[in-house]
């Protein structure tokens, strides 16, 4: 190897490292930026309806002041799931910029059932993974819960229910066309 070749390899290595730091850094930076509530509510679709509704609920206002932001529930924490979700979000960008499917409160309302069902399905499929980032059923002290909550949580463990089976519409308004009185985990009275 001549000294010229050596120099060449060395500079390629240095450039590679610097480029790597810049690319990886900006990728992470972009991930972090798009994972903030400010980013979510920079679109009026999110700011005017779901975020507005969230503010009335216990996940925004409560006794201890611990609160959940949009990504806490809607973006997975684990890296691989997070990246998958980010790629899926391109669909949301498409509808925001191209079709404008939910760009008025009326259009949002018309789509609400469909949108809610999408989120419910995802949460059901992941066994309510995002809920469990904070709410661990193993750490629940049933003695300190109300009797009816404790009973139902014990039943949920026994029968393998997931959070979203019962807790629908806790952070946003329920959609028209969904009847809480017809929905029960395990389906109605046979249980």
């Amino acid at each position, binding site marked *: 190897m001549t000294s010229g070749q050596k120099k060449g390899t060395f500079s390629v290595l240095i450039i590679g490292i610097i480029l790597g730091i810049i690319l990886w850094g900006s990728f992470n930076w972009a991930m972090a930026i798009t994972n903030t509530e400010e980013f979510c509510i920079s679109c009026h679709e999110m700011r005017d309806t779901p975020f507005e509704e969230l503010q009335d609920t216990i996940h925004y206002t409560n006794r201890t002041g611990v609160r959940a932001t949009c990504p806490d529930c809607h973006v997975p924490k684990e890296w691989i799931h997070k990246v998958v979700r980010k790629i899926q979000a391109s669909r949301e960008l498409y509808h925001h910029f191209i079709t404008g499917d939910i760009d008025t409160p009326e259009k949002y309302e018309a789509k609400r059932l469909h949108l809610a069902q999408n989120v419910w399905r995802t949460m059901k499929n992941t066994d309510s993974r995002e809920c469990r980032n904070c709410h661990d059923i193993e750490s629940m002290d049933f003695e300190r819960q*109300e009797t*009816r909550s404790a009973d139902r949580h014990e039943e949920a463990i026994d029968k393998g229910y997931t959070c979203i089976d019962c807790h629908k519409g806790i952070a946003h308004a*329920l959609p028209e066309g969904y*009847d809480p009185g017809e929905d029960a985990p395990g389906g109605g009275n046979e249980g």
Partner: protein
Amino acid sequence: MKKIIQISLAAFGLLLITGNTVTAKEDIASLRGTTDLSGPSLKAVKQKVISQEGGFERSYKQQPPMVPHKVDKYKITLKNNGCMKCHSKKNYKKEKSPMVGESHFLSRDGKKLQKVSSRRYFCDQCHAIQIDAKPLVKNEFDGLK
């Protein structure tokens, strides 16, 4: 001259009336107490909603049962009724909760309906949460035993 007498009479009458109302005002003790009308009202006393297993005893037979639990997380809107999550015909057994009364499925003409009648849709118009509050006015009400 006649006019002067008339005016002074009227003034005297007016004085009598206003004088009376002033004394009357002092006699009335309103629930608001001595709080100045133009000032801000007293802060509401914080009270916890009572959770009571098995529910509350009714005071008379046709009294709408009182709600023995918190309801702040359930919403009743034109689109959905959160109370039905547990009290609907389909879910009540599973949730071990009382079912919506049969009377709630009747239209005003007495016709049986499939769904809760719109007259009975807004549960909290009749069914109220309870707090452990002292009665504002002393009374001797005793429920029908």
